[in-house]
């Protein structure tokens, strides 16, 4: 039993679901990939977006207003919200590491059954980039992971134990895939919601990690 998605649909489905989880007022940092799309689904005006390259108060931007020197962490053009402020990279990561950002929404390559994630390197390849991932993992009050439930080869990305280099020893708080939503409590995965049209059997079949229901 398999639910079919094209990639864009899947990404938007996940992003929309995460957006619903955000309770304002809060400050949210969005990673690259699916997290970036979350911005499109934020209905409330008291959710403030932080980007680690030095801006609190990110909004979207119309094509004609694009400024090459105003970008998010993915180097995509963004706009400046009312009440926004700019700061240097050290101040930006001080906000993150110091616990002043409420939620970080990140992608992951793997999440293990205790909520530990791997999202910055693949074994056997050169370790070339980490960016702000490790800082966000240790610092954000809550971390939400968004990812496809399985890899291209069909294997589960929710694994018993990460085989890729981990990003932090801190467990994330929630995981959102195209199939289900999980909470992590006491370092244990708990299925809290099936995505529309998805059966519990499908989730079980495609999930290597142990989880409770």
């Amino acid at each position, binding site marked *: 039993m398999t639910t079919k998605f094209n990639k864009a649909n899947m990404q938007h489905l996940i992003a929309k679901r995460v957006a619903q989880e955000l309770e304002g007022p809060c400050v949210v940092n969005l990673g690259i990939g699916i997290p970036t799309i979350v911005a499109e689904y934020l209905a409330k005006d008291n959710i403030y977006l932080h*980007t*680690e*390259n*030095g*801006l609190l108060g990110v909004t979207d931007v119309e094509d004609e207003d*694009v*400024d*090459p*020197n*105003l*970008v998010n962490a993915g*180097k995509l053009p963004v706009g*400046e919200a009312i009440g926004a402020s*700019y*700061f*240097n*990279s*050290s101040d*930006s*990561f*001080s906000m*993150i*590491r110091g616990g002043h950002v409420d939620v970080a929404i990140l992608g992951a390559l793997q999440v293990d059954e205790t909520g530990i994630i791997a999202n910055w*390197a693949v074994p056997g390849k*050169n*370790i*070339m*980039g*980490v*960016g*702000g*991932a*490790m*800082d966000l993992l*240790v*610092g954000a009050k809550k971390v939400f992971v968004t990812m496809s439930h399985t890899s291209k080869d069909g294997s589960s990305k929710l694994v018993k134990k990460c085989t890729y*280099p*981990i*990003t*932090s*020893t801190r467990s994330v708080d929630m995981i959102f895939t195209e199939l289900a939503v999980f909470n992590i409590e006491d370092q244990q995965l708990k299925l809290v919601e099936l995505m529309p049209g998805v059966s519990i059997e499908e989730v079980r079949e495609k999930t290597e990690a142990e989880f409770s229901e």
Partner: protein
Amino acid sequence: MTKVMNNIQDALSFVKSGHTILVGGFGLIGAPLSLIDGLTEKDVKDLTIVSNNLGESGKGLGILLDQNKIKKGIGSYFTSNRDVGDKYQKGEIELELLPQGTLAESLRAGGAGLGGYYTTTGVGTDLAIGKEEREIEGVKYILEKAIRADVALIRAHKADTLGNLVYYKTARNFNPLMATAAKKVIVEVDEIVEPGVLNPEEIVTPFLFVDVIVEATQILTKEGVVAK
């Protein structure tokens, strides 16, 4: 004695082979494009470049990389330039990867006269290998060292002739930190103004950090990097 120079190569006269050089910018945004361009025309080698990225393929620091002028890169996200991986694979460049917040903080520590600091970032990961771990009040930290350099090449929006700097939007990023952490700080700017024009409450980099000011000859536009 003025800090303002009229020529990029004159400004770069402080850069020597073997130097450690801080280069501002987050990718091309806020990078000292004119000074980097000048470096590609200068006969130097064995540089250690501290910068978040090593440019993009064939752009910015990417050109310097292609010219084999870079001995070592210290940064957080080399992924933005696939050529870095190729060079590394061939053993033509050393790399030191740091979490982005650690890169920023180590530069600040260097500029602030600190030796190092204990951070939670990276604890228990592969990037903590070889680093001292220590528990302080029940929390695990690793020791990260300060970064200092011979030269900083940075970009700001406006400078007054004393060397006070203000930045523009997200082009600020690492530039103010790097301005504090090198023996010679060379800045390219969009505009040079007289002292007193910049608001004292708004100055981000006070002039005591800045040694050389030069007007940018290259700027980043929607269409990419163009001559000014």
